[in-house]
């Protein structure tokens, strides 16, 4: 009896303590030092098919850097699912890497922690100057009016990928340029168990990317100039409704897509079950799924009317990866040298070719390798008609709150429940109230 009671008590204490177990700590302020000039630690985000592939790709480049500068770089490739929490833990404890990759949509949120080195004029000059980079990519590296918190490393944009055979079978000669055309084509394509458009309804980030672009096309930004959320503005509501209506009203997205979050829509595309997807640099994924380059075509993401790149016809968010330096690095000069090396024209060409992304460095973009039809469209989109997601400190919360609202609306649409302006507004109002608490 006594044993079981003691066991119960120990279990209780252990389990309960685990509930509130939150660590904390402090870190030193300042802009780094040169206490340890011969080594650097680098957290690279997982860009390739897996972590091991990234190590194989990056290790020779790091050796090259070591040969040039004598600085040894300790590499750790961090999976995306862990990266943000690892950065937060490093920020809290002050025990982080010297240099790291961040998703560019996190830039303003991470900038607000004060843990990252600001890229002021002097720091940019140390890596060749701010003008070397595409403007939209730099704009996605920190809040407007502040020095960027990071430097663009790999850039991406959205495009419309379509299955040529499915289009031909449906008698469609060219990809849609406007949303009305997409719906009209979509109705021809959605039959016999096949569907026109694929999406990832359970993927909050993807939901945000799509509704942000549609929001721009409706003249909505989701935040006002004071960084206050405006999720229930007419434009934002119309954008979200338009997106979910592709399933709820237009019936050109399979209901099953509402629960997709693991790139299943790309598998459906590769299997010929879905005719179109809106995606970033999907060529390598299609190849891995057994599709030949001749099987698919690529076009700019549709706009309400006219061609992208004119007026307010934003048709992509600026996607990509940035490179940041932890403010309290023990090798500030080495860290800047490393950023300079990774953003040099030569490395930009090499790494972006390998990863299928677009260099945010203007000179490197001119390489013929980035003129393949799909990459050219991504490159042109990035240059002319892409906009960075709202660079506000609460961007991370925005992704969760609005991304979840859209996910819930997908679930309603999939279940056959009505998706109305009122129901969209109610979900967005709930998301906005959560942001304001």
């Amino acid at each position: 009896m006594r044993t079981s009671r003691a066991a119960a008590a120990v279990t209780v204490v252990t389990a309960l303590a685990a509930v509130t177990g939150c660590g904390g700590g402090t870190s030193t302020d300042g802009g780094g030092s040169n206490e340890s000039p011969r080594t650097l630690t680098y957290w690279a985000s997982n860009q390739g098919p897996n972590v091991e592939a990234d190590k194989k790709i990056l290790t020779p480049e790091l050796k090259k850097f070591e040969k040039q500068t004598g600085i040894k770089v300790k590499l750790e490739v961090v999976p995306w699912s862990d990266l943000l929490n690892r950065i937060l833990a490093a920020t809290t404890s002050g025990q982080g890497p010297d240099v790291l990759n961040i998703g560019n949509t996190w830039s303003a949120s991470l900038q607000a922690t004060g843990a990252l080195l600001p890229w002021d004029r002097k720091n940019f000059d140390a890596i060749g100057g701010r003008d070397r980079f595409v403007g939209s990519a730099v704009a996605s590296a920190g809040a407007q009016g502040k020095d960027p918190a990071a430097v663009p490393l790999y850039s991406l944009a959205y495009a419309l990928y379509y299955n040529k055979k499915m289009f031909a079978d449906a008698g469609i000669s060219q990809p849609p340029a406007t949303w009305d055309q997409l719906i009209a084509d979509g109705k021809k394509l959605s039959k016999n168990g096949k569907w026109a458009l694929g999406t990832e309804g359970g993927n909050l980030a993807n939901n945000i990317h799509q509704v942000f672009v549609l929001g721009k096309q409706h003249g909505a930004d989701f935040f006002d100039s004071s960084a206050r959320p405006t999720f229930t503005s007419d434009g934002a509501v119309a954008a979200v409704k338009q997106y979910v209506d592709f399933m709820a009203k237009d019936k050109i997205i399979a209901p099953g897509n509402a629960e997709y979050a693991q790139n299943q829509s790309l598998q459906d595309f590769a299997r010929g079950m879905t005719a179109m997807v809106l995606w970033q640099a999907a060529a390598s994924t299609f190849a891995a799924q057994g599709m030949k380059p001749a099987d698919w075509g690529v076009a700019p993401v549709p706009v309400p009317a006219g061609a992208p790149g004119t007026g307010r016809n934003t048709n992509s968010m600026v996607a990509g990866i940035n490179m940041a330096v932890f403010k309290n690095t023990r090798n500030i000069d080495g860290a800047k040298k490393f950023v300079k090396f990774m953003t040099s024209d030569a490395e930009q060409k090499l790494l972006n070719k390998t990863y299928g992304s677009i260099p945010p460095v203007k000179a490197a973009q001119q390489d013929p390798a980035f003129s393949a039809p799909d990459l050219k469209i991504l490159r042109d989109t990035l240059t002319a008609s892409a906009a960075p997601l709202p660079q506000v400190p609460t961007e991370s919360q925005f992704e969760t709150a609005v991304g979840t609202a859209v996910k819930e609306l997908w679930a309603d649409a999939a279940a056959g429940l009505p998706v109305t302006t009122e129901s969209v507004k109610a979900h967005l109002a709930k998301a906005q109230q959560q942001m304001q608490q």
Partner: protein
Amino acid sequence: MTTVAPGRTDRADNGASSGKGDPRGRLPRIPDRIRHGGLPYLLLLPAVALELLVHLIPMVIGIVMSFRRLTQFYIRNWGEAPWAALDNYKVAVDFDAPIGRALLHSFYVTCLFTVFAVGLSWLFGVAAAIMMQENFRGRGFLRAVFLTPYALPVYAAVITWAFMFQRDNGLINHVLHDQLGLTDQPSFWLIGDNSFVALVVVAVWKSWPFAFLIVMAGLQNIPRELYEAAAIDGAGVWQQIRKITLPSLRPVNQVLVLVLFLWTFNDFNTPYVLFGRAAPEAADLISVHIYQSSFVAWNFGSGSAMSVLLLLFLLLVTAAYLLLTSRGRRGADA
């Protein structure tokens, strides 16, 4: 026999009576009762130190955080985060506002989930353990099969369930809809109301082998003679279970149910792997909800306040449970 040190001999002589004589004998005596009673505490010391380091100190830090306005702006030096007094708690329990309302909903879902998951896990565990009492061909194999879910890595197992629950390509709909024709159309399990059912199924699948293991161990301590005597007196199988098995298992069940309750109420892996960081409303467990507040919305103060409230609730339930069960036990002993 004659090698005992003189001092020790003196002390032995004096100690029991007066404590005088040898100077060492004048030191306060530690009664054997206390000396021997202290040994277990000494042995517990490393565990207590580790417990302090690993759980209790972080828990205290978590409580301190709950009184601060801790967001990403202060994460580098959370000690400087502005004092929030009870604001974080007020937000958490303001059930007219979205955050409080969502927390209350999440709490309700978690309670319901715990009742189903613990109840079914316990039921299956006890039933299987009782069935496995009889010696039959293949019993060892079946036992091993039953314990397999307990031995599998949680992430791998739950992600497999997530694949099986997919509407269009999952095994569950293939069996229920395509093969058995039990549903008019393939159902959604990972979104909408069915997600609660999916969550309970996976949780029970994961937990019942533990109940089975513990109950099976408890059954080994019940003397066979009791069953034999009951059988001679004409008691049937149900009567034997009701009058012998379940009462004898009571101490084991008390601990088992408590442990299952705590594990289930705090379960994070199952919903997170099954649904990702935004669970459907019907399956919005409190653990993921608090995780979202802290690590997705980056409101660590508010997340800590919610954690503390949860801690208080679990402490209360656990204390009540232990009190009730110990009273029940005393009553039975009397």
